[in-house]
């Protein structure tokens, strides 16, 4: 098993106690592992670069054609702001989310400005999607998206063993709904 940060679970949610996973008895609680944190920062950086690239490139071309001026600098700054925001999000996100599951239900807490604790039963899942990008794969991580009739919930990153367990639970629940 990969090491989880179970020890400092209680410090994750501040403010209201319901946003702390420490009181969940009978639930398997997972906070972001070191790999997940590393992935989050790296993917923040990658997203930031992708968003910043067109602005920065455009600014450089403009500067080359038109010389120094206010507008190229502004566009360059917008690109850099994107980079910083995405990177910050990547750094902050793993401090904000955790998830917990049983064999019937799932809780995901997420959100940087607002913290939201979503609870949903596997029976409501209509479509399940596992994704693992080029940064995630070497770290042994994958993300899970649960599509319901009223929107989509997601686990941003989890290790393979958890993913397998949750996918099994969801499949069993889907069959149970079918049998009704």
């Amino acid at each position, binding site marked *: 098993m990969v090491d989880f940060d179970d020890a400092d679970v209680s410090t994750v949610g501040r403010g*209201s106690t319901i946003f702390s996973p420490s009181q969940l008895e009978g639930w398997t609680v997972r906070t972001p592992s070191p790999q997940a944190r590393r992935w989050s920062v790296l993917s923040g950086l990658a997203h930031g670069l992708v968003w910043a690239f067109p602005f920065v490139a455009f600014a450089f071309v403009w500067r080359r054609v038109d010389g120094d001026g206010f507008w190229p600098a502004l566009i360059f700054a917008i690109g850099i702001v994107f980079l910083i925001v995405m990177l910050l999000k990547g750094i902050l996100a793993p401090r904000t989310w955790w998830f917990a599951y049983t064999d019937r239900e799932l809780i995901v807490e997420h959100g940087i400005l607002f*913290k939201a604790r979503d609870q949903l039963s596997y029976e409501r899942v209509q479509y399940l999607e596992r994704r693992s990008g080029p940064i995630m794969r070497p770290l042994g991580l994958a993300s899970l998206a649960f599509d319901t009739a009223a*929107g989509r919930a997601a686990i941003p990153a989890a290790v393979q063993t958890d993913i397998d367990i949750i996918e099994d639970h969801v499949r069993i629940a889907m069959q149970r709904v079918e049998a009704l």
Partner: protein
Amino acid sequence: MSTRSSRALIDGQIVDSLDVESQRLSKFSLFWYLKSIPELTMGTIATLIPVIVGAIFALGLLIDWGIRRSFTEEQIETAINYDLDSIDGAKIEEWIEGSAFIDWISGVSIWAFLVPVLVAFTLIIGWLVIRTLQWRRIRFGIEDGVIWMTGGLFTGWERRLPIVHVQSVEFRSTPLQRVLTLRGVAISSAAPEGKNASIELLAVRRGVADELAANMQRAFGVSIDTPESADDASVPIAMVGWKDLFVAAANSFEVRLSVVSLYVAYQLLGQGPFKRWRDQMIGQVTKYAQEHHDLAHVLLILAGALLFFWVFSIAIYVATFARFRLRRNGMLAFIEHGLLTRRWRTVLLPHVQALSFIESPAQQLIDDGSLRMTLPGTTRDSLERTMLLPAVDRSVTIDVLERLFAEIAPETGNALRTIQGSLHRLPPSARRSYLLRWVWRLLPVTSILVIGMYLIPGGLNPLWGGLPLVVIGAFGAWLGNIRFRDAGWRVDERGVLAVRERGLSRVTRVARRERLVWTRASQLRLFAGKNVTFVASVAGAGARPGILSKILGYGLVSRSDSRFRVRGLLDTEAIELIDRLGK
């Protein structure tokens, strides 16, 4: 849950045996088809944009080539450097009178005039021909219990909608269609992609519509609502009076509807003798606006436009929902409404996820409200599809619901009956956030305004920048206090969740807990107390996260009509509520 009830509703064997021969739309439907704008998918738009840009670019190149071919370098040079300011009336007269222009024009090949006209002509004819051929390709029918529809000229498409997944059936007829004995048919499923997931037949002959209706009737085991159906078996539930309807319409300030209706009015008035009058009026309005553009007049014009839109949206609302009749036959609800375009809708009641009782301020004065239902795949945008009763008296609402859901969910009416007394109210600690909501919202703008006015002195005291905050903040606090007093929730012993919330109208939503798809508790990460926001959603039109939530975080989103929300309840109460709903 819905799977279970739809099994009971529809007999699989009968459904499988249903068949309707392949049919074409009525010949007259070409009129409506040519009038309609084709559905634009993202793919089409992505193709069209480069084509249009390329066409404009090619046209520019062509004109450039023509100019260079017919004029010398020097002539072009003089034309470019021509002093445009020196043109006056005398010069223009001289040009018109002189023979140079006539000589030049008569020297130009006739093709220079013919080609653009021919191209435009070909484009228009081509468009009409392609649309007509597309229309000719449309076929529909029922095969082994699946309603199908095919078409497509360049790309063939086929839609297949199993009758088991049908959620509502609608027949409609405009006055013109009534004269031609035609019917429009729309059969919709639960998928949120509205148009793409439903079978919409613009106009079919009455006999064909009857045949379709007969097949649906066999599938559902009862007669469904068509203009021709005999009204013996169904139980009348409610009708809507004119006064109640107008009061309900008073709050229907739908800008989207108004814009569409304005366009329709513009088109209608463009026909025959009205055209001159219409153009004169537009001319007068623009002239007035040009002559008076000081602040007072701009405000006056804005107020006039708002009033105009308001009256218009009332008229549209009344025309849409006039002569409303609600009936029931077993598990089907029959809804019939419309003044000009008449609609006969059949809704499968077991598919109704939640009910909303909406009391607008105007309706509250006369103790009225509107009843709306949440069906999977509908949003607030599809007002028509979710309307159960546009106006109903508070005192009879419970009775209406009880009769409507007599066999399916007898407790539905009861859930509303006891709501007044037993609704859990919000704790006093929530009042502050309700009162200060608009203050927090306006704070960033106000601070920017004040700092801006301080840095860029314009003769005004920078403190004036706080005026919007004071005015709107006070109004917001007043409204917030009302919202705070109205908000509440309850779960009764049968597991029916009722939630009351006020935006401008007071909305009471009711659903059984088995219908809830997910629940959420949320609060601000910083400066948060013990109060949280609780949201639960039934199957509705779930929306994918937008750009903002993509940047700021993941999460479930639901559109307003499928959302049960309580702002400001205590965290422990929220957890207890979530636990009770989960069981």
